């Protein structure tokens, strides 16, 4: 695929006059790299479809939005858009006709991206094969089907504006912030959202449940989120999909496979430095549940009989293969959604060339009752030094229903 893209670029570079070729090449290459950080393809390329030709449905709390065709096709893509229009879509969340975009397009984050970078992305998009593919983006129910409704939303939750460097901080910190808050749009999953899908104020990067998964807090300090992770741990995770604390699964596995593994080590390091400096509030101090609690005892029995064969008796796991449960942000997260998701449905870990094993956890949902899933989830959240709220059979039942509905 990559070879094919380079081939396309080579072709497109033959067309314009030779004088700009070298400059074009580095601009286009920068655009390609930035588009990878932005993970444009995750939405704009349909499974099995042509690159950036649109058509992938994006879940929002209000219904599905289908990502548009952003190839240079003039009729159905964005070939006819002016550079200003393209910048407006990234910076202001507006279409070329001045209509509002839906914030499924992460313009509340992309707005931070500087114009020269946006133009580099445009330059790269211009090199793609123009694909005729008319996409009916809007499949929302009324009243969300009215784009104008987003004007109010924008007024409430959106503030346009490019990233401003903090001169008190290092260049590395600022580069990291520029990417984390902007193109990489980490907050799109990790920021808590309100009922209207806007970022909850004061809860940046503090974790949120979406698409059947809980994106854990990625703040640092106060024993929460990435507190125990070093900068190197974060870089390793984003580059390979796994480290001593966690293995990427679900939407994060896709993010690693599609995007973060391709980010340069320098940029990953900058992002890690920035993340390590984001303080979240202290977690509610919890006492681990007593091992003698009947739920803990049943949970331990299930764990020993079924889970220990991979995750080991002490929850430490096996590096690069079976994630640790004793030091994992997801296991102890305030919302047990991800834990319940993987117990019920299983999951396959991220694949990267650096960690190609991509092991998978089997589904236990057919084998364990809600009470048993609750017991084992409660156990792993309260064993080996972990302390988190117990899980009830009712929690399991609603996650089971949610996951079943998502499969249909």
């Amino acid at each position: 695929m990559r070879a094919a893209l380079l081939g396309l670029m080579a072709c497109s570079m033959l067309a314009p006059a030779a004088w700009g070729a070298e400059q074009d090449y580095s601009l286009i290459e920068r655009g390609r790299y930035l588009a990878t950080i932005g993970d444009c393809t995750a939405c704009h390329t349909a499974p099995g479809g042509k690159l950036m030709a649109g058509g992938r449905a994006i879940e929002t709390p209000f219904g599905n939005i289908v990502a548009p065709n952003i190839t240079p096709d003039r009729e159905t893509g964005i070939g006819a858009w002016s550079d200003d229009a393209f910048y407006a879509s990234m910076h202001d969340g507006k279409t070329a006709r001045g209509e509002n975009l839906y914030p499924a397009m992460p313009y509340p984050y992309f707005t931070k991206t500087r114009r020269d970078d946006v133009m580099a992305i445009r330059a790269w998009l211009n090199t793609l094969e123009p694909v005729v593919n008319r996409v009916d983006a809007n499949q929302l129910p009324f009243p969300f089907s009215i784009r104008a409704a987003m004007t109010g939303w924008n007024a409430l939750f959106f503030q346009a504006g490019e990233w401003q460097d903090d001169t008190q901080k290092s260049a590395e910190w600022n580069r990291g912030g520029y990417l984390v808050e902007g193109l990489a749009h980490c907050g799109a999953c990790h920021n808590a959202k309100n009922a209207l899908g806007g970022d909850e104020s004061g809860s940046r990067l503090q974790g949120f449940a979406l698409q059947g998964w809980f994106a854990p807090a990625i703040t640092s300090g106060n024993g929460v989120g990435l507190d125990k992770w070093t900068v190197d741990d974060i870089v390793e995770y984003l580059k390979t999909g796994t480290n001593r604390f966690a293995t990427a699964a679900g939407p994060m596995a896709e993010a690693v496979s599609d995007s973060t593994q391709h980010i340069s080590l320098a940029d990953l390091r900058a992002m890690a430095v920035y993340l390590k400096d984001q303080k979240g509030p202290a977690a509610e101090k919890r006492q681990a549940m007593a091992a003698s609690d009947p739920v803990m005892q049943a949970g331990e029995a299930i764990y020993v009989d079924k889970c220990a064969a991979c995750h080991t008796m002490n929850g430490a796991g096996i590096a690069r293969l079976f994630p640790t449960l004793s030091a994992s942000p997801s296991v102890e997260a305030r919302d047990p959604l991800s834990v319940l998701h993987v117990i019920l449905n299983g999951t396959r870990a991220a694949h990267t060339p650096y960690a190609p094993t991509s092991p998978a956890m089997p589904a236990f949902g057919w084998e364990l009752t809600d009470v048993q899933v609750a017991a084992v989830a409660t156990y792993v959240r309260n064993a080996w030094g972990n302390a988190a709220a117990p899980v009830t059979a009712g929690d399991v039942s609603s996650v089971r229903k949610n996951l079943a509905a998502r499969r249909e």
Partner: protein
Amino acid sequence: MARKLPATDVVIVGLGWTGSILAHELTEAGLNVVAIERGPWRDTSSDFPVTHAQDELRYHIRHDLFLRPAQETLTFRHNARQTALPMRTWGTFMPPNGVGGGGVHWNAETWRFLESDFVLRSHLTERYGEKFLPEDMTIQDWGITFADLEPHYDKFEYLCGTSGYAGNLGGQKRQGGNPYEGPRSREYPTPPQKQPFGPTLWAKAAVESGFQPFPQPSGNLSQAYTNPLGVTLGPCTYCGYCEWFGCGNYSKASPQVTILPVLLRKENFKAQTLCTVQRINTDSTGKRATGVTYIDSNGEEWEQPADLVLLCAFQLFNVHLLLLSGIGTPYDPNTGQGVIGRNFSYQVTSSVDGFFEDKNFNPFISSGAIGMCIDDFNGDNFDHGPHGFVGGGYIGAVQTNGRPILSTRGPAGTPSWGAEWKKAVAQHYLSTYTTVTHGSSYSYRDVFLDLDPTYTDIFGRKLLRMTFDFHENELKMSQYITDRLADITQKMGPKVMEKHPRKGPYDVNVYQTTHTCGGAVMGDDPKTSAVNRYLQSWDVPNLFVFGATAFPQNAGYNPTDTVGALAFWGADAIRNQYLKNPGPLVHA
């Protein structure tokens, strides 16, 4: 009429160990590779996960992961005077099926053959004289030496992460390893597995008897391991569900947990599953393979043209395809002429049961390749002069499982049902210990494979026919090494001991091993071998045949390490010799 697919550089028939290795090596060389697999895709967490991998009925008794005889089987007879009848269900062996092949459900015993095994006929003739060998024994040299194969054994073991302790490191003998093995270029990738009670007790008895026991080399890993491809395997948990089962926690070496995660993601590789290759196609000269024809699960026929055809199916079915495709001269037992189907061999196993009163062996705490062995009675490690037979096997305490449907029993005389049976199995389950021999099977003029005249498969093709029985040499060998095993086992202190040397005639109902060998063997002479020392067909130089199919006879070991090493050896020959100058690599 077959529809023609776009040509590819390489087509591989069968995606088990050898197919996966060849596909990986040749895609690395930049070739486009298509693998065609008769069975389904299989993966750890969906097909044999820890939720239900430990199901004796489904996987072992009902053969869930195996080829269905309705898909393909063979016919069997003891000798040419009998009429062969079809194997309607599996008994004596269980051919694999699906992506990963036998690598999914092997025990993972990872042995190298002895140096003398590769030059068997010349070695034995030199030591004992030509007349010492039975007149109808057709054993022969392999055309390669242990030294040729050593770097490739090493590659396969480092791919798998094999657990063991070298007994011969670069010519230096080491206490604690196998003193008879050929020199290794380096230590095993991981240390030996831990040993349960039975092997420990047996090893003590072996030391008391003056032997040097050593841990069996195991593809069930003693610790986590990341192989040269970057793929990580986990540590074995001694669950006792190896042979006939897929491993649920990534700790038994298989294509799934060593190669496929990398191979499947390569742009220049693809695999077709649930597609059965019908034949290898050749051009009008018959000297060049043009690809293969296969039928998919909808019954549609496709032709896959390719510059290079690699047969990587299970041993029996490589031979079947060669016969069906009319490649090479079929073997004729009456004249001894012809090579396809010649020198079929098997494995000669036996056991000694010890019934103890005061011991608890916890037989369920085990792995397919755990155990302590000695190699003093293998190959030509001992003087056969006084015994009147050749060959041998490793013997030892190999604790593979304690699965109850097949392992519950009492001493001889225990009724097979009723109150006495029930009492006996309750009493003996934990305190019975079985030790084993794993003996060689040499080849004979009247043991061979050909096409059956009567029975056909679902495609209307003639079934493969197997003509096989044990010969006196092998039965004598089994008696001798079983006695030596019993000498040691007796020192463990059983109240009752029962010896079960292998007896004839060959019983197809009773599982022995799935180590069928030969039928298109390698060698230096096109009159007595189907493929040259590089596994290349003498008749069709752009066709290579892998697997135990190439063994001229079987040694007293499990074959997989040698099968894997030969795959790397052949891949090396293709990459470094054939691709530079396509054509015969050896001129007869």
